[in-house]
């Protein structure tokens, strides 16, 4: 808990005003098994490398196709095979898709974690498990469904490996049978997931069918959970943020991509490579309108992106924390020599190697000031897959407009997990290639000086090699407005002051925040990125549990708009909710806000590596507001102590 939380909790301990109660979504029933439809969560515990991801996505997709809002979060180890992994599907008829602490249905397929997984459940939860694990003796307040997986898969194939793989599809069948998911939807989802492999589809369909029939014929339904068709996913898509960013980059006309593999950003470039090969090879010539290089490290990756940006290409790289650290020196060069490039930072848990497969918003300060000296970078904060798509495009426009690296701050939860979204829209704006001069522009501005502030907005004009316009010498060493080497104090100061002016200009060009003012609210909430989903659910909880009104300001970019100050000014307390230990966004805001307003800022911080959930936000805000909140149970991570050993 953050120090601020502790202090406030002590302060208000003696003044209980309200005892929080659980929200309806969190309430589950043991004694009165009323039906619980389309509002629960399923966690599948498996061993990584066992091929369970396909089964999990088939289940997710089948629920999605049934019209029920759904989200899927994969909690996986930094390992290839043999360590525990959990996939959690949340269905919510009201459309909440943030992480949820409570698990209602556990599918226990990992003997190593089975006992601990069962112990972590709340009373009334359901356990579907391999009967050989004998988990039903562990507790007597849960609903157990043993499944004889070995027996069921025995007839499918003689191949041991195949049997192991199709076990996953058997649990899908059992779940579908128990929850009354339309079997047809399971089949459609299976085809969608494995469509290109008819043999595999047939085999998996058989497994699905076996599980389904077993559940229907042998399991007496004792739990309240049902999936019933709705119409809330019509015209929506299911995708990951990294896929969305890849589509955005392609639609933005990216031409040079340099990258170095690192979780959780690798799938961004890999997906992009797939799309580019499909859609950016010209039919007539069979030649590519793009270049992709897997670099030797992240230093080379950003170096190539900057080289390409300097030479006029739309260039990008994608990385995560450790790569960001390595890119530091070049990022400063990009800022100071004014070279465009787009850097996707799919954040994971640091410091150092940290938790490579867990999510965080921990690179905010590092990216904002990446490199030595007075360096500042433009950042975008996508909260959804849709914004990964749209901001990828904006990033390229901004990079060229402002001739500087632009950081798109995604995270593992957004990048690698599966999210519902509206269909993306085909771009309507033309590419903004920024102030690249041609002969006509040259005539208008007179003499070309690479770093001259002709327009008073801090953004100079540039030429690119090979364009027959006047050349200049691009350098990271001191330079004057003619791009000549200079160590003169006035040249240096004028140049960095102009860079600051350029940064000011960027304020109004960057995407505006999404602000929702509630006139009755004395509390404001600020969030960004994936934290958004927990916050919107929490705001409803705050109202439902304590009748607390809130306003909301979602940051989409840095530098911040001036609207930030007026938002803070409107509210007595403003909670900045983020997924890091050190309140990085709050710290950044303190640098911008008038000192008198900074005392209104408070923090809600979540940094376990798991995606933030709404109840955590609600409880932390209520505590700081002086409410006494019922103990919600320890922050629950399903990870046993032994897991995670095994390195990267």
């Amino acid at each position, binding site marked *: 808990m953050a120090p601020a939380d502790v202090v406030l909790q002590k302060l208000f301990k003696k003044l209980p005003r309200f005892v929080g109660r659980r929200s309806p979504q969190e309430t589950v029933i043991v004694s009165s098994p009323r039906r619980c439809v389309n509002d629960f969560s399923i966690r599948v515990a498996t061993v990584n490398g066992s091929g369970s991801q396909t089964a999990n996505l088939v289940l997710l997709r089948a629920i999605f196709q049934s019209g029920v809002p759904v989200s899927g979060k994969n909690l996986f180890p930094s390992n290839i095979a043999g360590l525990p992994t959990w996939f959690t599907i949340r269905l919510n008829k009201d459309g909440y898709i943030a992480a949820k602490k409570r698990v209602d249905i556990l599918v226990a397929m990992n003997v190593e974690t089975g006992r601990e997984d069962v112990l972590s459940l709340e009373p009334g939860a359901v356990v579907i498990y391999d009967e050989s694990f004998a988990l039903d003796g562990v507790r007597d307040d849960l609903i157990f469904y043993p499944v004889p997986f070995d027996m069921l898969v025995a007839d499918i194939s003689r191949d041991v490996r195949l049997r192991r793989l199709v076990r996953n599809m058997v649990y899908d069948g059992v779940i579908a049978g128990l929850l009354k998911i339309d079997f047809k939807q399971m089949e459609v989802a299976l085809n969608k997931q494995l469509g290109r492999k008819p043999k595999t589809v047939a085999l998996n369909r058989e497994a699905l069918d076996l599980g389904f029939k077993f559940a229907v014929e042998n399991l007496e339904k004792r739990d309240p959970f049902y999936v019933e068709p709705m119409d809330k996913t019509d015209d929506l898509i299911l995708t990951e943020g990294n896929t969305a960013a890849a589509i955005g980059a392609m639609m933005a006309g990216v031409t040079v991509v340099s990258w170095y593999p690192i979780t959780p950003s690798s799938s961004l470039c890999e997906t992009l490579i797939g799309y580019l090969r499909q859609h950016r090879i010209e039919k007539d010539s069979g030649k590519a309108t793009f270049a992709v290089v897997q670099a030797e490290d992240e*230093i080379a990756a950003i170096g190539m992106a900057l*080289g390409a940006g300097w030479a006029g290409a739309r260039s990008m790289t994608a990385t995560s924390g450790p790569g960001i650290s390595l890119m530091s020196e070049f990022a400063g060069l990009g800022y100071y020599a004014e070279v465009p490039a787009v850097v996707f930072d799919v954040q994971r848990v640091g410091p150092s190697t940290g938790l490579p497969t867990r999510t965080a918003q921990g690179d905010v300060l590092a990216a904002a000031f990446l490199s030595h000296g007075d360096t500042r970078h433009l950042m975008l904060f996508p909260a959804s897959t849709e914004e990964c798509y749209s901001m990828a495009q904006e990033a390229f426009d901004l990079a060229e407009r402002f001739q500087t690296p632009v950081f798109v701050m995604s995270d593992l939860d957004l990048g690698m997990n599966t999210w519902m979204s509206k269909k993306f829209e085909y771009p309507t704006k033309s590419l903004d290639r920024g102030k690249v001069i041609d002969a006509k522009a040259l005539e208008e501005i007179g003499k070309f000086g690479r770093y001259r502030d002709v327009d008073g907005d801090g953004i100079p004009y540039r030429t690119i*090699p090979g364009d027959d316009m006047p*050349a200049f010498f691009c350098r990271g060493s001191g330079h004057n407005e003619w791009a000549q080497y200079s160590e003169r104090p006035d040249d240096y100061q004028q140049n960095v002051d102009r860079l600051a002016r350029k940064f000011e200009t960027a304020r109004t060009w960057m995407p505006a925040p999404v602000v929702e003012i509630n006139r009755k609210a004395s509390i404001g909430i600020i969030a960004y990125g994936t934290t958004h989903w927990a916050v919107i659910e929490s705001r409803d909880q705050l109202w439902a549990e304590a009748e607390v009104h809130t306003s909301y300001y979602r940051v989409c970019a840095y530098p911040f708009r001036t609207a930030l100050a007026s938002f803070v000014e409107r509210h007595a307390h403003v909670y900045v909710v983020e997924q890091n230990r050190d309140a990085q966004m709050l710290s950044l805001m303190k640098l911008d806000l008038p000192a008198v307003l900074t005392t209104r800022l408070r923090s809600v911080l979540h940094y376990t590596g798991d995606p933030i959930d709404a109840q955590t936000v609600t409880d932390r805000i209520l505590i700081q507001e002086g409410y006494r909140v019922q103990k919600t149970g320890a922050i629950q991570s399903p990870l046993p102590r032994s897991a995670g050993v095994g390195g990267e």
Partner: protein
Amino acid sequence: MARATTPQSPKRVNRLGLKPTDYRGSKTTLCAGCGHNAISERIIEACYEMGVNPDRVIKLSGIGCSSKSPAYFLGSAHGFNAVHGRMPSIGTGSLLANRELVAVGISGDGDTGAIGIGQFVHLMRRNVPLVYIIEDNGCYGLTKGQFSPTADLGSKLKTGVVNDLPPIDTCALAIELGATFVARSFSGDKKQLLAVLKAALSHRGTAMLDVLSPCVTFNDHEGSTKSYAYAKDHDDPLEDISFVPFFEDITIDHKPGTTQEIELHDGSKLYLKKLDEDYDALDKMQALRVLEETKTRGEFATGIIYVDLGRDDFVTLLNLVDEPLATLSEDRVRPPKAVFDEIMGALG
């Protein structure tokens, strides 16, 4: 290009109608007598004589004395002074952005052999089409004379400190890594260096040139193995090089068996007249053996050490469209709505 259309003066001009002075840069700020200045002079001559269009040239460098020198030649060309040891990545990116550019990269022995060895290694592997020149003086000049990784075993600093680590032979390393054009020369050998530079400009792929370039201030004393005196005494040319550019109709007669003739990618011809050994610049094993043998003798072999004409350069390997990627029109880089709808359909 504006300059090419100006009326030609009766003075000396090249095939583009450009004068030697059109290839000059700003005044050097390096020490008088620095080998790097001689290399800059040869680059100017080579580009002039080859009729290289300065508007298509990009000059690239890292950090150090050597890396300052791109400012001192081809003043009308674009330049990029990158961070220490990372010029190869800047070069790779810019050549992917615009495949029509002619890239000349200048590095030093510290910039390449120490901080930049990683990027050097991968540049050689990729065969990115650029001329990569190491201005090699065995020491860090700009930080006042510390040893670099190419300093020879037993070589002595002015302060008396003796180098006790073996040197990196950038030529042998480059050959090992798959480099397709490897040469070594000496800033004091005008004729050889000029021929090597012209051949390098005619090669499509990475042309790696290690040029001994004595540091008059920190490494030109008795006991140094990178001094002018030492270099003159221990330079062991492999061949007598004649270079005939593709646009000149000259043939050089030679007795059978005395001269190796190599036609470079642009049609220019190299005539390598054999000296004491029957040297074959297309033979990788011989190249590595000769480098090792000369090193053992305390000498250094110079000339065109190795050429591989068979490997595709990186741009070709990536199968890029003929035009520069940087300036492709929007309709060629943004897929049409039908494609987009298909992608959305697949995600629904």
